[in-house]
């Protein structure tokens, strides 16, 4: 039911996800942030049960931090993706994480890169991707509109196009979307339907 979208451009990646937290017929929240920060220059857009998403993303993020403090250097996006995939693979035949993710990051040597991973620990580096039912609606839009060396603005327009298409044609109502850009400056929230911070 969750939607996760990702697209790479010249100098970074955009990862977007809907903000609905629901199970079965009940909506728990409208402001969940499903694009979890991993490091200063990478994010993990996750779909799946909240428990698995939180457990998995936090475990990976803390391990990234441990690596950085131990080795005094950041892990490349490729290494982070492989660590994620390894974690999924190890857990698969013990107690699998039921998450489908899009990992987007920026590093000095390769610029922006996007990795598609599913709950069976399959992984592929992609130019753009979608998780969930959204793929039925959005992959064709990405296919048509993605170009090599797009600018950030152009990529944002494509994401907007995907989101409007979903809101028009997808049966499940997803009014709020969280859109984050990862580039040389780090991670930045470009747009959010609702503020993820709890109003207590």
């Amino acid at each position, binding site marked *: 039911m969750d939607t996760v979208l990702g697209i790479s451009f010249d100098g970074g990646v955009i990862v977007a996800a809907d903000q609905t937290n629901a199970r079965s017929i009940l909506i728990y929240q409208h402001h969940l942030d499903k694009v979890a920060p991993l490091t200063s220059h990478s994010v993990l857009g996750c779909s799946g049960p909240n428990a698995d998403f939180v457990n998995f993303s936090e475990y990976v993020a*803390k391990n990234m*931090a*441990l690596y950085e*403090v*131990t080795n*005094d250097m950041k892990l490349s996006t490729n290494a982070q993706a492989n660590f994620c995939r390894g974690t999924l693979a190890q857990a698969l035949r013990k107690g699998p994480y039921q998450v489908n993710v899009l990992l987007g990051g920026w590093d000095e040597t390769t610029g922006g890169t996007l990795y598609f991973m599913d709950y069976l620990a399959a992984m592929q580096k992609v130019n753009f991707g979608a998780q969930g039912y959204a793929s039925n609606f959005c992959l064709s839009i990405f296919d048509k509109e993605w170009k090599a060396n797009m600018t950030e603005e152009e990529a944002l327009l494509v994401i907007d196009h995907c989101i409007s298409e979903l809101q028009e044609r997808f049966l499940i109502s997803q009014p709020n979307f969280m859109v984050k850009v990862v580039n040389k400056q780090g991670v930045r929230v470009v747009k959010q339907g609702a503020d993820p911070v709890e109003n207590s």
Partner: protein
Amino acid sequence: MSYDRAITVFSPDGHLFQVEYAMEAVRRGSTAIGVRGVDCVVLAVERRALAKLQDPRTIRKIVKVDSRCTLAFAGLTADARVLIQKARVEAQSYRLTCEDAPSMEYLARYIARTQQKYTQRGGVRPFGIATLLAGFSDDETGGKPVLYQTDPAGTHSSWKAQVIGGRNAKSLREFLEKGYEESMAETAAVKLAVQALLEVVDSGAKNMEVCVVRKNETIFMEESALDEVVKQIEVEAGDKKGTTPAVAPVV
């Protein structure tokens, strides 16, 4: 060879010799000094003369445990690496479980507890290191700078200024006691730490490494900045003795 027999056992007069020998190993290590200022903690360590062919950048005596805690040690470097890694993993593990960074006191307690465990277990020897932990306490209790020390026995305590390692630790501690003032600004704290270190190392920035832990960042002093501090201290010491350097007497 059974690994269930403890190595650290009591002597008839109540000593734990292995722990005391471990403390001796600490004394053989190079000196590390910590000074707590009003808004920072300064860690200064002696950089022992290296072999000509060795790359000095690979000898790190001041390390980060996590984004908020910096550690300096004295004693066996290999033991330090193991203990520091345990502390790093614990810091991340705490964040994972509690969604919050561990306090400095928690980390000091953890490291001390680990060191104590190795004095009361079969088949292992104590860690031959003492550590100085620099950081800031939680914002609720005021966000103040704190300096903790742990030793091979497994005790931890908070200090305003402390020195570990080196043969002259005792006299250096007295030096710090004389020179320490409450609420020192960063420059004064750096100066005191470097002054104390100059008592045991040859003059020059390349024989020492100084790190300043501020509330939101930790910086390692550049050699040039450190040279300035050393020069200033020497000029003042020269003035006190009644001689002014660099002025030739006129006959």
